[in-house]
């Protein structure tokens, strides 16, 4: 895939592939919207500073949206098979072994995403949060301040932005599962 001739694949097979496709469309739309907002924020930032009323929150908001875009991009790239690889071996293989390699690659991505999901789950510590009753109480009990950490100028907590990580972890899992199903279908074909 390249930005030059990006095409969004059509007509997916099976419910899992359809779900993945739907999620991917939503992610692409959200990503495009984020780029649009970053663009407008920078325009506004330059304009209002010129008028001597700097938008104190504009930079921080733009930066946070950009980081969200990175995590969205990682999930999108799974769906579009657009992740950057060194890709020396796959290009030289005949179709059958290449299909096996694709399956192996997708299983590795699945394993990676599961490990990350575990890391994120333990970091979020939802059971702990429910037991403690509030983010502040959790912080005093466990030294985990993730539900109380503030942004500098936005007036909201960081956790609202951090939620992009569990969210895209989940969508990434949907995409890679759909692709493994597709790999297996390809391998069953003679």
């Amino acid at each position, binding site marked *: 895939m390249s930005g030059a001739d990006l095409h969004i694949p059509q007509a997916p097979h099976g419910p899992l592939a359809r779900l993945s496709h739907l999620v991917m469309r939503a992610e692409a739309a959200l990503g*495009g919207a984020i780029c649009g907002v970053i663009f407008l924020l920078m325009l506004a930032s330059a304009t209002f500073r010129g008028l001597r009323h700097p938008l104190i929150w504009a930079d921080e908001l733009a930066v946070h949206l950009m980081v969200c875009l990175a995590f969205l991009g990682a999930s999108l790239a799974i769906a579009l098979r657009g992740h950057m690889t060194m890709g*020396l071996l796959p290009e030289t293989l005949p179709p059958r072994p290449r299909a096996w*390699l694709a399956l192996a690659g997708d299983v*590795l991505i699945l394993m990676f995403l599961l490990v990350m999901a575990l890391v994120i789950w333990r*970091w979020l510590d939802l059971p702990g949060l429910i037991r403690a009753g509030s983010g502040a109480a959790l912080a005093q009990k466990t030294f985990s301040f993730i539900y109380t950490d503030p942004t500098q100028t936005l007036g909201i907590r960081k956790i609202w932005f951090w939620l992009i990580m569990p969210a895209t972890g989940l969508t990434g899992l949907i995409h890679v599962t759909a692709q493994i199903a597709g790999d297996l279908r390809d391998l069953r074909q003679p």
Partner: protein
Amino acid sequence: MIAGLSFTVLLLLGAPIAFVLVAAALILIHEGGNQILLEGLPQQFFAGIESYPLLTLPLFILLGELMGAGGIGRRLLAFAAALMLPVRAGLAYVNLLANLMMASVLGSTVAQLTVMSRLAVPEMERAGYPRDLSAAVTSAGGLLAPVLPPSMNLIVFAAVAQLPVGDLFRAALLPGLALALAFALVIGWLGWRHNLPRIGRQSLSARLNAARAALPALLVPAVVVGSILGSVATPTESAALASLVTILVAVFVYREMRLSDLPRVLVRTAVTSGAVLYLVAAAQLLGWVMTFGNLPHEAAAMIRDLADSPLMFLILMNILLLLIGTVLEPVPGIILTAPVLLPIATDVYGIDPLAFGVILCLNLALGLLTPPVGAGLYTASLMTGVSAGRLSWLLTPFFGAVLAVLAGLTVITALQSSVGG
């Protein structure tokens, strides 16, 4: 050890580089017995790219996409070609010259090569250049941005070294021009070797037509330069202002784009910049874990033990930096290495800190284009459709040019050190 091994094997098997980097970070945490880092890992992952200068990436990708979609790039290059004499590989020289001019305003390689690859590569292809070679020439030109002032890398180094930015800018001027000259030589050689096309002889009226057609398009670079120098915008914001002008010119003057095309352009920008940004975040995470294990410090100590002269020190340092640059971005690379290497360079070997900074920054800038991880390499690859492997192969002569300039700087700096050459 295990981290390094699995890293290499997975990369060769074609696993996504970004995931391999994060996996290597996880393995390194486990091996080093620093499991405590896992507790805040997602947070550190996120914070690794919470940086204002990185905003240039999506914004300049947007500008590049818009210039391509709106026919701005085509007209600008036709105009530049109209100014050019009929020499072999003329458009490649035009490309280099455009890069040189942009580098005197921009300080970021990725910003520059993004715009240039949308502007120049399709035109060079139309003129009969192979697309992959055009992409390589364009990407290499991007390296001029962080070397010629202004430069984000030099500013960050100045902060770490507590040196005046202006002095560093002055120290980088000659090496930057030497780099441009070296690139011109490489283009000359490429032109001869690949028999690259000449720019056809043009009549005066054809030249004037090209200039007239390009007049509205010239507003775009004028806005980038003017808004920065005219104290209206930061370089990051200048990309947004120039994007706005691009939209206006493309929709209302050239009528090659409709407002309804904007969502498609934005989605394309999101896909490209999202993937590159995640890669940067992943590399940054690995760098953080390595720093936590005090690896930069140990590497610096090793160099100090091995080197018996300023020249030897600088050579070993260059090798270390080239290795670091294969994975890390210049800015985190500077922050990781400069604090541990600079005191040794100045106190033990009597090396001039300004010259040291120029060598360090040029070397780490090269990392943007070297595989396996380079934001510049992948942005260029995504924007031109040339595979990263192919692109890095074609960049080899340009890498050679950078290394030649680095070697020259290294020898001169060593000879000038107070400890003697």
